[in-house]
């Protein structure tokens, strides 16, 4: 789940003014793994191939100094998504509906001559007394475009990886890349217990709703939210203790093991070569 996706969920849930809608929307997006279970191109690949391929492309995006190279990488994600039976409108909208809003705010100042001096494209203010000059410049537009395209393409790749890979397999693949075991475990538990805590939050919300009538003052709402956050934190802390004990009780000694055995097949090697080859080409074109 990306920030953009998360904010989208909050927005949708907010529109319906129901915390339970948020729980439902999050559950659908985070936990269903419905797309990851479809039979498609990326779903059929070993998660390590996808993870290494995604990282190679992300590095290429960071190193590339050429808009066309980054745009080409983004374009390549579209047939990959289609071949993996990811609904195209969902995939594109999920990323691009919110990128302009968040990254756009960060990129906005870069458009102007104040931060990006150079040839003006559009002059906005040009007064002599007092001397004020504000224009959108060509280097500014290029900088903003780089930022938007880099973020959009990176998020698209991450979304594609998450949508087409079951969470457990993704965690296992992370271990191959020597990501610290503790970090991988924490990720796994976070994912699992977001759901439980969302339900707890939802119940707290409903319990409160059942005891109030009419409109509650904003200050009171804020106090309740802060208190609820505290209660939820205490609950999650107690639950985390119990979960760790339950893991220990069944033999956990700090090293998580998963039943699925990952096997490299011929197609995996081929696709790894393709992904890394594309990343190298994009970096070379952009250098």
């Amino acid at each position: 789940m990306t920030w953009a996706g998360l904010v989208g969920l909050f927005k949708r849930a907010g529109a319906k003014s129901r915390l339970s809608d948020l729980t439902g929307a999050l559950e659908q997006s985070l936990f269903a793994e419905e797309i990851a279970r479809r039979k498609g191109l990326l779903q059929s690949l070993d998660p390590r191939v996808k993870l290494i391929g995604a990282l190679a492309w992300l590095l290429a995006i960071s190193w590339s100094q050429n808009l066309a190279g980054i745009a080409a990488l983004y374009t390549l994600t579209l047939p990959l998504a289609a071949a993996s039976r990811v609904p195209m409108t969902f995939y594109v909208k999920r990323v691009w509906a919110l990128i302009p809003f968040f990254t756009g705010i960060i990129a906005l100042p870069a458009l102007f001559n104040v931060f990006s001096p150079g040839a003006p494209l559009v002059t906005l203010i040009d007064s002599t007394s007092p001397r004020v000059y504000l224009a959108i410049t060509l280097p500014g537009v290029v900088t903003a475009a780089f930022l938007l395209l880099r973020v959009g393409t990176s998020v698209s790749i991450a979304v594609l990886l998450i949508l087409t890979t079951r969470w457990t397999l993704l965690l296992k693949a992370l271990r191959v890349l020597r990501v610290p075991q503790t970090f991988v475990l924490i990720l796994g538990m976070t994912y699992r217990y977001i759901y439980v805590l969302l339900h707890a939050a939802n119940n707290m919300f409903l319990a409160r709703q059942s005891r109030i009538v009419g409109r509650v003052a904003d200050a009171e709402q804020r106090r309740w939210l802060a208190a609820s956050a505290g209660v939820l934190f205490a609950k999650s802390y107690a639950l985390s203790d119990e979960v760790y004990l339950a893991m220990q009780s069944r033999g956990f000694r700090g090293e998580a093991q998963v039943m699925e055995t990952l096997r490299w097949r011929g197609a995996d090697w081929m696709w790894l070569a393709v992904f890394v080859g594309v990343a190298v080409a994009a970096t070379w074109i952009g250098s």
Partner: protein
Amino acid sequence: MSQDSPPVFQVEHVTYAYNNQIALKDISLTIRAGERLAILGANGSGKSTLLKILDALYFPQRGAVRAFGEPLTEAALREDARAFAFRRRVGLVFQDPDAQLFSPTVWDEVTFAPLHLGLPRAEVIERAEWALDLLNITKLRDRAPHRLSGGEKKKVALASVLSLRPEVWLLDEPTASLDPRSQARLLDFIGELTREGKTIITATQDLDIVEEIADRVVMFCEEHEITSDGAPHELLSDYDRLVECNLIHAHRHTHDGTEHVHHHLHPVSHRHAH
């Protein structure tokens, strides 16, 4: 089970406190192989803490515990071989299935224990399939535990321990939040374990199930000490002690126009006659 059966656990003068708040006070208890023991007590009396000590999740601050004749200490369990040997023999079913079920799918959950205890992959698969089949939940195999009903979660929690095939079962409030049908199935399951000669230690405050699941009862009162130890029918007929330990309470109601006051078995049934 007879008095000649070897002791599974020997608890000697154990005291345990959470941040200076006493949970267990000078507890001594011997539990023998094949015994069916119920630990009775109200909320906060220390039952769950005792189960966690027996499962070597907590270690006593005073006193000692021996399991299968060996000292059960943090130092002893630091050694992988000893820890694995102990964990293969003892399984704990937690009260809250959301604490017990932490894996992404039911299959991952049921394979977790045998996998982490170093059994060969083929045996892990065989045991997991057997456990799912025995509890009739094979159809839930690929489901996410958090999306199951309360009864289904409890079955998965049992299966997650069953796949370990432990000799000793520790059950923490096994009937809590279960509907009547799920409760009945759980009791059938405990009956199966009994026929297999397993040692079953159940922490509960549900007096209705005690005679079905236990041949011996130890009772905790709110002072966190064992106040009684005996046969279920003896302890369950000691109303004064049950009231003192907050396991039943006086119940006032009107019947045929007359007001009655009875001891009330809490929480499920009224065991009284007019």
